[in-house]
């Protein structure tokens, strides 16, 4: 089947997809309104712990807001990919008695998490606004593009994970371990670069810049280039940008934390990584789609 036919067929299964998503959300948030608020507890607790611990190390202006604008997208991404990886084997009994375009299942995993993601981002920002010094700006109009990027990236990777997990069942554990490590190499709990458009960094940090940084955060093996008080030395920052999630998270940092639209280069980078990953993921998924049923 050609890609176009597969997409047309997927469209014909939109009712199924809609139903799966709404039922799964219903189960997840069963106990009415409180159910959703329970799901805010996890990001809230992480926010609290990390911002208390790390603001002692970095002294970044409005650290809680910086953290939130990266952490919530990350949590969506990690949960979506992990649910995707289980989605096909979880649908085994259904796949044995009825034909489905298999992409329905990773797609549902992503969409379910997207709903929770959008809601928790909005609610957290609204509730925490007075405490973390947050005001919405016009740059928010850019956020739909940010969502498109991270959703495409998550679906591409999730589709890949779904296929691999069918053939190697222990993949789910590996993914969990890998996600844990990936989180730390992505600038979420620390900034990679100064955010110039943001309200100036705290006086303590600006003052520290010309001298040796007073905090233990800067590695002793700092580069020759003048240090700017940020935890990652300038020479190493380019390697952090090889991480695709850096580009995705930037799409949220800029509009939410800095209150500006990302640079054209950043948008082009994020979009091409997202679309490239999605195309690769779909190509692999569709190549194996018909054979999956024999491996379940």
């Amino acid at each position, binding site marked *: 089947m050609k890609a176009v036919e597969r997409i047309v067929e997927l469209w014909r299964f939109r009712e199924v997809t809609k139903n*799966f998503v709404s039922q799964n959300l219903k189960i997840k948030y069963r106990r009415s309104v409180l159910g959703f608020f329970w799901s805010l507890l996890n990001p809230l607790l992480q926010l609290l712990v990390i911002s208390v611990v790390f603001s002692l190390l970095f002294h970044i202006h409005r650290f809680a807001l910086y953290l939130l604008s990266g952490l919530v997208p990350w949590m969506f991404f990690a949960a979506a990919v992990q649910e995707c990886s289980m989605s096909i084997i979880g649908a085994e*009994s259904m796949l*044995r*008695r*009825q034909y489905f375009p298999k992409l329905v299942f990773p797609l549902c995993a992503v969409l379910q998490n997207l709903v929770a993601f959008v809601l928790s981002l909005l609610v957290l920002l609204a509730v925490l606004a007075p405490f973390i010094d947050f005001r919405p700006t016009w740059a928010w109009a850019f956020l739909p593009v940010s969502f498109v990027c991270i959703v495409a990236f998550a679906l591409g990777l999730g589709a890949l994970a779904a296929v691999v997990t069918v053939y*190697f*069942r222990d*993949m789910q554990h590996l993914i969990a371990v890998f996600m844990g490590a990936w989180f730390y190499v992505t600038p979420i709990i620390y900034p990679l670069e100064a955010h110039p458009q943001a309200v100036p960094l705290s006086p303590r940090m600006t003052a520290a810049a010309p001298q040796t940084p007073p905090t233990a955060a800067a590695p002793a093996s700092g580069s020759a280039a003048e240090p700017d008080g940020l935890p990652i030395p300038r020479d190493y920052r380019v390697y952090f940008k090889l991480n695709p999630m850096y580009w995705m998270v930037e799409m949220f940092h800029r509009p939410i934390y800095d209150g500006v639209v990302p640079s054209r280069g950043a948008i082009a980078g994020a979009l091409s990584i997202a679309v490239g990953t999605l195309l690769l993921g779909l190509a692999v998924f569709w190549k194996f789609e018909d054979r999956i049923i024999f491996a379940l």
Partner: protein
Amino acid sequence: MTAVNERFIQLDDVSLRFRIYATQNRSIKETVVNLLLRRQYGKPSTEVQALRGVTLAVGEGQRLGIIGDNGAGKSSLLKVMARIYPPTSGRIERRGFLVPLLEIGIGFNGELSGVENIYLTGAIMGFGRAEMKQRVDPILDFAELREHADTPVKYYSSGMAQRLAFSVATEIDPEILLLDEVFSVGDIHWIEKAKARMQALIDRSSILVLVSHQMELIEQYCNRAIWMQGGRIAMDGPPPEVVAAYRGGAAR
């Protein structure tokens, strides 16, 4: 879908081959260890040739019964017709709204209520919420589960769950109906009711394909029968003749 056009299923030289792994749930750990030790895969996989060059045309008004020994390819043939198994080679064409009732009763979500499961099952079979809405009441009435409509299905007895599953599956109007082993569950009163409903469902559909080990069912419901043997069609004809030949062959 295509109410005016003739419904059909056509298989052209269809073969189905797949691997069964001796160890299900292969893991990366195992694969890496095997590679490091330069060991061949501990347990070999076996290849199954389920269908060998099956050519078959089922047209409007036909009630096809499939009989044969276990492992002869009956269920594989049904699953190929339902698109659950993609054929290794050959072509399949079909026209008409096809509903496979292969293993009735699985697929319910225990956390969801009876009504929510009706919508979910409907969606799986291709019906939107609006289309299912008018079917909810008849389904609940037939299943005699009205007072438990909002109870999560995990609290249903197995008989209740079966009744609900059967009622949902038989409420729809398939043009092509694929049935694997007509089942009967519950008290005598229910079996009689279920039989009548199944008969009505079969009457409504344009094409029926039925796999069964119960020869009476084949003779009762079908106007054509095929006998599968080793993945091939060994005989094709009127049910009484094919059943008689199968009985004779099986006795040999």
